[in-house]
């Protein structure tokens, strides 16, 4: 197998007795687009800054390419970083912003101009090169920040929530540009976001972080379909997965019987050894269907319907989920109304099952 572009081994980092990164080991392959995702405070930005060299790990090693860079100065690591605030030098023109690092490194003027122009072409910044950042829109500033990274021709691009200062429309557009850019220059990219849409659409590999630890690593759809635990299951997907308190009644080969209190369901689970005990049944909103009376798994009263056009979200209060309304994603024109009693069916194979320690029991098929 080819060497990793970035390799983290058992990295720890604390700030004043708070463990921010708690033993992270991770490997990023060359050309991969890896997204660190997780709730705020999960350590994803710190992890990126550790790779950049803006923070020093308390222990553990960081390797970029074939070099151990744990103690190497940020400028010597072969990385380039795009900041959430863009961090453009406000007193320099776009061209000077992009060329600053190259000038510091003592590159010839012609070479700097060539690289700046090349990056400007890729990012359609050609007409803005003489402008100051204050004369640019948010999206243009973002592109300049990316341009500043491109001209350095780094081994690895690091992005720290680069789109979070943009409005929703621009964010969508920049997301597409970033994906195109990744294809175009084929570089390794490590990207931090709390936005799961960005994570799902951009990543070739997602790293879900929580409390300074890696919860799960995998391709976006793999994480979506086979979350390793309840945290990942709840974090990816919008609206998030419904969690119904349940008990497993033990399983025969390939199937587990689950008691929801009001009803029971047999969930197919290949090769999982399940003992009886407390558990959680997870069902994604889109996996519920409206059933006729008597045939559904659970029934309840619709408390709210949000019609989004192409789809509708129904919030259902049911004894099966006493603490939280069940969210059901339906086709936009489904005739459900508030206060109506609905019966919800689910395909057993689409159900997720978590044990008392919130670990996934097998995977849905």
């Amino acid at each position, binding site marked *: 197998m080819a060497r990793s572009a970035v390799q983290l081994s058992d990295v720890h980092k604390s700030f004043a007795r708070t463990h921010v990164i708690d033993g992270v080991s991770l490997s990023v392959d060359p050309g991969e687009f890896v997204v660190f995702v997780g709730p705020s405070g999960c350590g994803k930005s710190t992890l990126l800054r550790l790779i*950049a*060299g*803006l923070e020093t790990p308390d222990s553990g090693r960081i390797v970029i390419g074939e070099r151990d860079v744990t103690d190497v100065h*940020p*400028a*010597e690591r072969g*990385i*380039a*970083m795009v*900041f959430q*605030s863009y*961090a453009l*030098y*406000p*007193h320099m023109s776009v061209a000077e912003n992009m060329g*600053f*690092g190259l000038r*510091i*490194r003592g590159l010839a003027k012609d070479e700097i101009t060539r690289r700046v122009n090349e990056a400007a072409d890729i990012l359609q910044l050609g007409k803005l090169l003489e402008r100051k950042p*204050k*004369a*640019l*829109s*948010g*999206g243009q500033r973002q592109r300049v920040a990316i341009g*500043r990274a491109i001209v*350095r021709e780094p081994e690895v691009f690091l992005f720290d929530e680069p789109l979070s200062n943009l409005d929703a429309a621009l964010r969508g557009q920049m997301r597409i540009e970033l994906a195109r850019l990744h294809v175009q220059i084929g570089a390794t990219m490590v990207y931090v976001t709390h936005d799961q849409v960005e994570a799902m659409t951009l990543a070739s590999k997602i790293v879900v972080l929580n409390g300074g630890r890696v919860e799960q690593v995998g391709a976006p759809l793999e994480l979506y379909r086979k979350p390793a635990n309840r945290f990942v299951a709840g974090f990816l997907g919008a609206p998030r997965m419904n969690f119904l308190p349940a008990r497993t009644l033990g399983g025969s080969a390939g199937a587990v019987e689950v008691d929801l209190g009001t009803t029971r369901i047999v969930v197919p689970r290949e090769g999982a050894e399940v003992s009886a005990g407390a558990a959680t049944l997870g069902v994604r909103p889109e996996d519920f269907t409206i059933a006729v009376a008597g045939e559904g798994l659970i029934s309840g009263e619709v408390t709210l319907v949000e019609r989004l056009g192409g789809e509708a979200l129904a919030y259902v209060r049911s004894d099966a989920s006493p603490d939280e309304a069940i969210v059901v994603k339906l086709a936009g024109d489904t005739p459900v109304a508030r206060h109506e009693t609905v019966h919800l069916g689910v395909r057993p194979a689409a159900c997720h099952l978590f044990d008392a320690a919130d670990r996934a029991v097998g995977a849905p098929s």
Partner: protein
Amino acid sequence: MIYSDRRAGLAFAMPFLIGLLVFTLFPFIASLLLSFSNYQLQDPIAEAGYVGLENYSAMAADPTFRQSFWVTLIYVFVTVPLKLAFALLIAFVLNFRLRAIGAFRTAYYLPSILGGSVAIAVVWRYVFANDGLINQSLQLIGMDGVNWLGEPGYAMATVILLRLWQFGSAMVIFLAGLQAIPTDLYEAATLDGAKPWTIFRRITLPLLTPVIFFNFIMQVVQAFQEFNGPYVITGGGPLKSTYLLPLMIYEETFKYFDVGYASALSWFLFLVIAVLTALAFRSSKYWVFYSNEKEAPK
């Protein structure tokens, strides 16, 4: 209702308005008029006569005035850059996150609260006296004392030092300016490979220019108006080597009673400050950088 509101508002503004009228506007206009008169302080004002530009032309022929203006220029152009550089250096150091940084900041700011007072000038006079603290310390390490207040060169240095010692307010403004520079920019520059000195020169200084400009103007204006220090420490001597213009204005008025001439001197000083300030503003578009000017439409 509206009328009584207005009266209340006016009442609250009155202290300021009275101050402005009595202590700023009236002296401002009166001194301009008096500068064209031969008014003597001991005579009734009714006897003052109009003399046209006589007071101003007298200045040109007055060697004392030329000496005074010369030492004022030296004082201003030595103290302002030195004080700004010193204040910036201290602010830069105090901008680091160090243990007990608040105590250090307070300690460095203290002289500025005390420094402008006459009491400190008196202390300064004793410290630099022939048998003062400095000379005694010099003798302790086997060096000869210096006649700080008796030699023209040293006397000026002593007066300049007092001003430098009061770097606190400029320092605090610099400190605020430094803290307004986003950390991201320093990190971006670090990633770009810039060394600390380059970062300071290429990032910190340009982004600090609005604050430098503000401090420069304030310091120039204040330095031209310095009175307490030289008045208390040297009395303008020796050989008028620290005889700053405000001292001369004071003596022309209250020692020689020549209010007309003193008023002309005041207006000359005012015009010098005004011209220099205007020049500084003119030049600012070439070197002062404002990062938060209007944004382009999205």
